[in-house]
């Protein structure tokens, strides 16, 4: 389960070595924007060694690679694919063709390193206007696609507008990408809230993202992780209601009744599906808490 994803600069050992203990469900080891061109080679080696030799027991590891319009993306994949990270994040993904190029190269590497076909999964970062418009095609073009990820900063530059705290300028993109991802049957993650000192703003931004259908949200600061985890976890009230729904269904089945009501409200298939999702998530959280403190 991924509620929070925390970006960590790929060439900064003192941050990477603490990545496992920052509370995020996933860390994104960044080889792209957080690394200067002169340090790309060193960062690639450091990230490869960190994945290989450090134990990330409490979080998944995602590696953000450089975009297709650079000379770095193949070298990034050469180092990272053999280690089979949980996900690879291609950047500036604007079309299905972009995914296919990366997919083909990963397929070559999987063969070379005797890794099963389609083992390596992708979470494309959609951060261009074209990428937003092509989101469904991007999500469905390859078996490797595990989720979509919205990048608000580059997107606003491409839209030629200013990135603001209330995010009106990315509202269309957020809704469009959620719809595309859900239609494709994959997860979808929201752009970070970039004011690291605004401890209240992060709650509002995460709650809005959740209300739109996002699976989770990314962060650029560990300070925002707890808020994101809290918002994207089911509340005790949600969990109690979900169990009530399932119990009502069980009793109705026993009694041979078709139509079921709970607290005066009809229980239909979407409510049951939501209750099942809530219970599954609550149980997963419970098992995760057995291994760590939040």
């Amino acid at each position: 389960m991924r509620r929070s994803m925390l970006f960590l600069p790929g060439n900064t050992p003192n941050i990477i070595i603490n990545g496992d203990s920052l509370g995020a469900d996933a860390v994104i080891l960044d080889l792209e924007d957080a690394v200067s061109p002169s340090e790309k080679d060193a960062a690639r080696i450091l990230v490869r060694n960190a994945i290989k030799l450090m134990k990330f027991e409490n979080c998944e590891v995602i590696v953000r690679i450089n975009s297709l319009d650079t000379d770095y993306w193949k070298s990034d994949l050469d180092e990272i694919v053999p280690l089979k990270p949980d996900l690879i994040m291609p950047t500036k993904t604007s079309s299905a063709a972009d995914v296919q190029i990366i997919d083909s190269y990963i397929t070559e590497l999987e063969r070379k390193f005797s890794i099963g076909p389609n083992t390596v999964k992708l979470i494309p970062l959609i951060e261009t206007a074209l990428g937003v418009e092509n989101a469904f095609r991007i999500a469905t073009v390859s078996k490797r696609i595990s989720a979509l990820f919205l990048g608000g900063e580059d997107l606003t530059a491409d839209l030629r507008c200013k990135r603001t705290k209330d995010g009106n300028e990315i509202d269309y993109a957020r809704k469009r990408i959620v719809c595309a991802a859900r239609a494709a049957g994959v997860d979808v993650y929201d752009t970070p809230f970039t004011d690291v000192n605004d401890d209240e703003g992060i709650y509002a931004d995460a709650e809005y993202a959740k209300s739109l259908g996002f699976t989770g949200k990314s962060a650029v600061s560990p300070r925002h992780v707890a808020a994101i985890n809290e918002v994207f976890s089911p509340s005790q009230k949600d969990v109690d209601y979900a169990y009530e729904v399932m119990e009502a269904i069980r009793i109705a089945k026993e009694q041979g009744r078709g139509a079921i009501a709970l607290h005066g409200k009809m229980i239909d298939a979407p409510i049951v599906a939501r209750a099942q999702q809530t219970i599954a998530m609550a149980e997963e959280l419970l098992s995760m808490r057995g291994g760590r403190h939040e």
Partner: protein
Amino acid sequence: MTKIVKKAYAGTIESSDVYVELEPKDVGLDIQIESVVLNQFGDAIREVVIEVLEQFGVQDAKVKIVDRGALDCVIRARVEAAIKRGEGK
């Protein structure tokens, strides 16, 4: 065998990192280590540095290490990066 043909460095002197500097040398390895934990881990750091140099076939080089409490995987990464920058390919 890999020959170091130019002065090269990798890493930083920030906490948990290590600065590695390599220079061409005619014969053998000359390794100098400065570390905040030299008494406790100086030998272990030297061993790791030599292991990586051997792994990449570097037999002749002057090596300067400024360690700021880097983990084994970080030292290995920085030495490897310095070798690749210094081998002049």
